[in-house]
């Protein structure tokens, strides 16, 4: 018995509609893969251009007017030292702010104000932080165009990332943990410092690493404070062989960082410097991707293991 006409029309309609499902699934898949593959191709061709340049000398030479002799020694040392300042400032400050907002803050207008500020700061373009740093750190506080000025600038830049990550991972700690600690007579600070913060460390660490990986690649604010591109010396060593063994001379030293070195090489017209830029870009990408991968690994690893 053949189905009557109405049913046939309806089946054709359903088939047509279902076809759209398939079409969209294909379009979606391709636009996603298209984007990812395009980027992979771009990174790949940069790698092809830059890899031959990656040698021991490239990491141990100062920048030079001769492209084939130029290296990234002052750039990666500068990046490391700036990141040290950034981490030492942003991590304690960000965690403290996150802990306050999540565990201590009363529901009042000051808390609202702080929360609005944190969300807003995350959306401010990075170059504006550069202008802030130029006016405040470089001239007002007279820190000059130094490592400490750059480190503080990037610390301010990633502060919202650390605060948000801290808050989110603290929020995931169940209230029973706190009640258990209180029941045993712990004070608020004992509860927070010995239980809440250690248990949320995985999430906080993820946020810190993602923030730092963003700071490594930031160029605009560092250019704005006037970092030099041609630095053929290293900052004073932080570790000394004589008493008191540590020195803080390096904080006020002039410096350059990886992305600025790369920007400088890209901006030159000569082909040979573009090869250097590709190599520097490759090093930069590998650094940020490794950090991001580490952060993602920590998050997935701990999310699976901890069950309350």
């Amino acid at each position, binding site marked *: 018995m053949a189905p009557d006409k109405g049913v046939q029309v309806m089946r054709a309609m359903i088939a047509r509609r279902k076809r759209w499902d398939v079409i969209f699934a294909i379009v979606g*898949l391709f*636009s996603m893969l298209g984007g990812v593959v395009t*980027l992979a191709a771009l990174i790949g061709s940069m790698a092809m251009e830059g890899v031959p340049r990656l040698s021991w000398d490239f990491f141990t030479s100062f920048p030079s007017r001769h492209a084939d002799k130029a290296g990234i020694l002052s750039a990666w040392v500068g990046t490391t030292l700036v990141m040290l300042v950034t981490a030492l400032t942003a991590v304690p400050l960000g965690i403290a*702010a996150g802990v306050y907002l999540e565990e201590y803050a009363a529901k009042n207008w000051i808390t609202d104000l702080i929360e609005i500020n944190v969300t807003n700061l995350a*959306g401010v373009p990075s170059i*504006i932080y550069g202008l802030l740093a130029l006016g405040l750190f470089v001239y007002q506080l007279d820190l000059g165009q130094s490592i400490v000025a750059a480190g503080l600038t990037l610390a301010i830049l990633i502060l919202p990332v650390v605060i948000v990550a801290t808050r989110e991972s603290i929020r995931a700690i169940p209230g029973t943990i706190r009640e258990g600690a209180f029941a045993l007579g712990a004070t608020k600070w004992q509860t927070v410092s010995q239980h809440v913060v250690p248990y949320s460390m995985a999430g906080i660490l993820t946020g810190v690493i*993602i923030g730092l990986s963003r700071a490594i690649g930031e160029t605009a604010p560092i250019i704005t404070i006037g970092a030099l591109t041609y630095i053929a010396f290293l900052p004073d060593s932080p570790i000394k062989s004589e008493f008191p063994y540590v020195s803080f001379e390096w904080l006020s030293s002039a410096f350059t960082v990886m992305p600025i070195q790369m920007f400088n090489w*890209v901006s030159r017209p000569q082909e040979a410097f573009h090869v250097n830029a590709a190599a520097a870009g490759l090093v930069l990408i590998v650094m940020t991707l490794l950090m991001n*991968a580490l952060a993602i690994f920590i998050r997935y690893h701990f999310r699976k293991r901890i069950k309350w």
Partner: protein
Amino acid sequence: MTPDASRFAHRRLRHLRERFIEFLLFLAALSSVAITVAIMVILVRESLGFFEHVSLVDFLTDTQWTPLFDDAHYGIMPLVSGTLVTASVALAVAIPLGTIIAIYLSEFAPHRLREIIKPVLELLDGIPTVVYGFFALLFVTPLLQYFFPDLPGFNMLSAGLVMGVMIIPYVSSISEDAMRAVPMHIREGSYAMGATRFQTALRVVTPAAFSGIAAAYILGISRAIGETMVVAVAAGMQPNLTWNPMEPAATITTYIVQVSLGDLPHGSLGYQTIFAAGLVLLLMTLFFNIAGHLLRKRFREVY
């Protein structure tokens, strides 16, 4: 001292320490407010110095921006046009692709693919912007010149396209979050009425998540406006009042970079111009950010 008194003393000390720690943490939280205030004070103070020499009318209506020339003009329009053109090209890429990818990830993709793709998109978000600038100048521009032989080596089209690809992950992840926040029973209702996946995605989920998706667009706009390195590397640094993306032009951000690369004395009018330009940029992004957050908040409260 009696044992009781010593216990009270101990307790009081403990209480004091607690309050002290709380105060320290409060100061840390307050630092975010201090940063905002500092940004406003610095930008406004230097801009006021700038506007003592340049009238606001000239600033807004003059069609030339040549503050460092002998014949100085201070019209912000060429910088704003460059900013808007590059941002528009970027959004023309990021909004359609970001939306399609978000719908696909949220409604169509198999669970395992999503678990792989989300971290990959996050990884792409972490690539430094100066590297994207390198791509735009040395790979995308030559490719475009193959199709448009007249295209100059520095142009807004290539910078905008690359910037668009750069903000796709950002737009798609916020949009996807909004779509995932639409409760399952709404989708089930649609399926029960006989709708297909595509119909449900397009006519039920997307409208339900609309304010979140709109927020993603607006935050994307604000990011495109504030982006610096891609345009600084690939779009040229010459202020140019044009709406044609095939031409080179400076944006607000590249002007700031250009001046910072030079050596302008502190306190000079040239030094103050970058703060005036920065203030315009901040106001533009602030407007979009506030609009975006209001919309985002609304979609969170609906269900």
